[in-house]
């Protein structure tokens, strides 16, 4: 557990997760593109034909930006939460820096996230949105989301070893978040008295920033650009601290 080759281990763990995910499937990595496209099509149909929704132009881009960001958050958080339990063979038999397991799971999901961001950018350009200077902020914002999920995953993956209920808590939290992150509605539609609640939701903040930049061509609110890094980095620090404490007894509980 006192090794100096973290980078190499991390790269190997990420490539393992990435390779295994779609191995032996004929469409392979295309599923990363197909999944959000199908969801986008269904949600666009429902919210333009069944519940006519006139407020947003290019509704499918709005939906896709929400979906891509939320999907990454939810998938990587859920799979990283069970990453310690799922690798109990490694935990019990191989001395390694264990925090690499949840982090590698999140980063492997980030590769799919990257592919889906590519899809989003492609469709946005196709819909006629132009590249502007604020696009330079996009990688930073996405990176901060990854940092945030890593922190969250370190906490829940460690707790899941002691209380297996944690995975179901995470699952339920994600179901709730699907509705509380503005995926198929816009910020403008949220009644003002609830808006302050949304401020404290980093996933919603990422969606808001992403839409502001791509669809409105403007700078995201400054308060958001301060809160997001503060929240993300402190979560990561908290995650590492808590994980360090809890990991000593992992082998006894698995």
């Amino acid at each position, binding site marked *: 557990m006192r090794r100096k080759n973290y980078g190499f281990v991390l790269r190997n763990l990420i490539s393992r997760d990435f390779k295994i995910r779609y191995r032996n499937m004929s469409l392979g990595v295309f599923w990363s593109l197909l999944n959000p496209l199908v969801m986008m099509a269904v949600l666009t149909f429902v919210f333009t034909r069944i519940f006519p929704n006139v407020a947003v132009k290019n509704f499918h881009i709005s939906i896709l930006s929400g979906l891509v960001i939320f999907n990454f958050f939810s998938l990587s958080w859920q799979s990283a939460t069970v990453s310690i339990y799922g690798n109990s063979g490694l935990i019990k*038999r*191989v001395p390694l820096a264990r925090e690499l397991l949840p982090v590698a799971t999140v980063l492997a999901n980030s590769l799919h996230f990257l592919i889906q961001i590519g899809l989003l950018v492609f469709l946005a350009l196709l819909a006629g949105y132009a590249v502007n200077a604020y696009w330079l902020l996009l990688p930073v914002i996405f990176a901060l989301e990854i940092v945030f999920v890593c922190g969250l995953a370190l906490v829940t993956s460690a707790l899941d070893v002691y*209380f297996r209920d944690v995975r179901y808590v995470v699952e339920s939290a994600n179901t709730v978040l699907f509705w509380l992150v503005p995926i198929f509605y816009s910020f403008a539609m949220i009644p003002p008295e609830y808006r302050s609640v949304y401020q404290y939701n980093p996933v919603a903040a990422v969606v808001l920033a992403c839409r502001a930049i791509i669809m409105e061509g403007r700078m995201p609110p400054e308060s958001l650009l301060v809160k997001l890094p503060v929240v993300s980095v402190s979560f990561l620090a908290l995650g590492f601290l808590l994980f360090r404490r809890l990991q000593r007894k992992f082998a*006894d*509980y698995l």
Partner: protein
Amino acid sequence: MPFVRFYHVSKVYSRQSRQFFWRFFVETMGRKPREPIRALNDVTFELGAGESLAVIGHNGAGKSTLLSLVAGLTTPESGLVEVEGRVMALLELGSGFHYDMTGAENLRLNAALCGLTKKQTEERYQQIVDFSELRSFINEPLRTYSMGMILRLGFSIAVHVEADILLLDEVLVVGDQDFQQKCLTRILRMKQEGKILMCVSHAPDMLRMLCERALWIESGAVIMQGAAGDVIDAYRAGSVPVNAS
């Protein structure tokens, strides 16, 4: 110089129910919590460079717990564990392997997990494949391997990591005669180079060949330790000779 030192080490596993609310309910009803299991009880020994220790005892005696403590996979409740040097633990066949990946992919992943850098892995890749004698099978998925082949791969990686302390838990028995012989030769050479070896096995002949010293534990407590031949004889006879320590 590498060393392994245990001073009065005890390890306890709790047997309390992990269902928090159920436990709370049961305990308020006045039932006493279950006695914890003492996996190791006041174990003391010391190993220096080039020394080798066989750990024997019946199933559940605490042998694997002992090796886990050396590897730093778990921590003792009391006592002191001091380990100096890089540890290579081969505690179970195929731990850390993924069955949907090929032998070569598993080799790289496992080498990384065992502490090799990218450069070292690439340098030793061919040696490891040659030692394992898996040849073209190395590019097949692991689920097509036999137990013996998985052992070959795992063991070949383990001896090429060049750790200072090698831990083996009942893994050599699966290989065929030739491969076992090759492994024994290799391990004996590592000992001459000053590496520390700790071995758990139920094959007395192999232990006699590999280890100079032995530690016999039952229910976590040391029954006898000393020269491997004496301890193994006593273990097989089922009692400690009167004149032994």
